[in-house]
C-alpha cells in the first residue's frame, strides 16, 4: 500500500478528481493549504502599500491506494494538474503500513 500526497493548484482540483475517478480511484482526502516552492509569492497593493504575500494557496490531497495502482494514479494526477507553468505542485509517494476500515474492521488492501 502507498500513500500518495499531491500538492496542486486549487483550480485544478476538479480536473484531478475526475481523472482519478476515471481510473477507478474514488476516495481521497482534501485540504486547503498554503506554501511556496519555486513559484514564490505574489504582491498585493492596498492604497499604495505593497505587500509581498509569500505563501500561495494550494490544495493538498491524500489518497491511500494499493501498490499496483500507484503508477496510474501518478500519471492521472500529473496529466490533470499540469498547466505547464511554474507552481503546478508536487506528488509525494510514501509507504503505508496498515489501513483499517472502521465500520467493518477490514484491514490492508480490503480497507482501501
Amino acid at each position, binding site marked *: 500500500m502507498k500513500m500518495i500526497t499531491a500538492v496542486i493548484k486549487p483550480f485544478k482540483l476538479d480536473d484531478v478528481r475526475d481523472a482519478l475517478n476515471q481510473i477507478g480511484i474514488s476516495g481521497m482526502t482534501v485540504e486547503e493549504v498554503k506554501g511556496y516552492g519555486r513559484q514564490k509569492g505574489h504582491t*498585493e*497593493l*492596498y*492604497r*499604495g*502599500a505593497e*505587500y*509581498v*504575500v509569500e505563501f500561495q494557496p494550494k490544495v493538498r490531497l491524500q489518497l491511500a491506494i494499493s501498490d499496483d495502482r500507484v503508477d496510474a494514479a501518478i500519471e492521472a494526477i500529473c496529466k490533470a494538474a499540469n498547466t505547464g507553468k511554474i507552481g503546478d505542485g508536487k506528488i509525494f509517494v510514501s509507504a503505508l503500513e496498515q489501513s483499517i476500515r472502521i465500520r467493518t474492521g477490514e484491514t490492508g488492501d480490503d480497507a482501501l
Partner: protein
Amino acid sequence: MKTSISLALCTALMLVSAGASAQEINGADTAWILTSTALVLFMTIPGLSLFYAGLVRSKNVLSVLMQCFALTCLMSLVWFAVGYTIAFGSDGVEQGMWIGDFGNMFFANIGMDSVNGTIPATLFAIFQMTFAIITPALIVGGFAERMRFSAMLLFSTLWMVLVYAPVCHWVWGGGWLGAMGLQDFAGGTVVHITAAVAALVAALMIGPRRGFGTVAMPPHNLTLTVAGAGMLWVGWFGFNAGSAVAADGSAAMAMLVTHLSASAGALAWMAMEWLRHGKPSMLGTVTGMVAGLGTITPASGSVEPAAAVLIGLTAGVVCYFATGYLKNKLRVDDSLDVFPVHGVGGILGTLLAGIFCSTQLGIFSGNGFSDGISSIGGQLMVQATGVVSTLVYTAVVTFILLKLVGALVGLRVDGDEETQGLDLVLHDERGYDL
C-alpha cells in the same frame, strides 16, 4: 390720542404676525431634513464604522467599531451639553466672531415649538448633531489599532468642545469666516479639514503601528469596507443635500453634484491604479469615491454638474498621489489614510469652490461669488483664509489636547498589547470566532 394708540397697537400686532410668518415651519423642508438627519447618522453607524473596520487587521476589528459607536453616543451628549451652543448659540442673540453664546447649553432654549428658519429648532439641533458625530469618528482612522480607548474618549470630548464647535461657529454659526463670505456648503473646512488635520497630528504624535513599513498590514475584510463605502455614498446625500436646510433647488443641485463627483472620483482613482500598477482595485475605487465625496462637500452648494465632474476627477488623481506620498515617502502611519483623502480633498474642494462658483466659466459656471466679492481672486483669498485658519487652529489645539491627554492617561497601549490586538486587550472579546 386713542386712535393713535390703537393704530400703534395694530401696527405692532401686524409686525408680530409678520415676524411669526417668517418663522413658520415648512413641511417639505422639515420632512427632508428629518430624512437627511437619518442619512447622516447612517454614514457613521454603520457606514464609516464598516468602512474602517474592514481596513484594519482582524484582531482590531471590534476596537474600531467600538470607537465609532461609542463616539456616536458620547458626541451626542457633548453636543447636547455644550457643543451646540458654542457652535450656534441661541436665537435672538447677536453672535460673536469666535464662539456662540452659552444660552443653549443643554438645549435650554429649544422646545417643541421653537423654529429655526423653516424647520423646528429641535430638528436643526439634531441634524447638526449628526455632523458633530461623524467628524470625530473620521479621526479614528489616524490612530487606529494602537490608541487607548479611554484616551480616545477623553481626547474626542475635549476636541469636540475646543475644535469642532468653534470652527463650526466660525463658518456656519455666524462667526468670522462665514461673515467674510467663505463658501463651505457642507463642511470642507468644518468637517473634513478639522478631522483630517487632527488625524494627521494624532498619527504623528502617537507614532506608527508596530512593524509599520516592514510587516504586512493588509485590510482584513474588504467586503465590509465596500459595504460601508456604499452606505457612505448614500448617506452623503443627506450630508450635502441636507445642508441646504430646505427641500428646494439648492438641495437637489447639491445631490446631483455630489453624486457626479463621487462617480468621477472613483473612476479617476481606479484609472490611476490601472495605469500605474496594471490592475484596478476595489479598494482604490471606493477610496476614490470617498475622495470625490469629500472634495465636493464644501463646493456642493456653489458649483454645477460640469464643474462637479472636474472636481471629482481632480480629487481622485490628487488624493491618489497624496496617499502614496504620505505613506511611502514621508513614512507617516496615518493608518486609514484620513489626511490624504479627507484633508487633501477638503482643502482642494474648498479652494475649487472659490473658482467654480464663478458665473463666467461657460459650462463650468456655478452659483456666484459671496456678497461683496467680485472676482475669482477675491473669493479664492477668502477660501484660502478659511483653509489655512482651520488647518493651523486645528493642528495647534489638537497637539495641545493630545499632550494633555497623554499626560493624564497615556495615549497608546504598550507593545505587547498592540501585538495581541485591541479587541482582546481593551474589550475582552473577539470579532470573529470561526
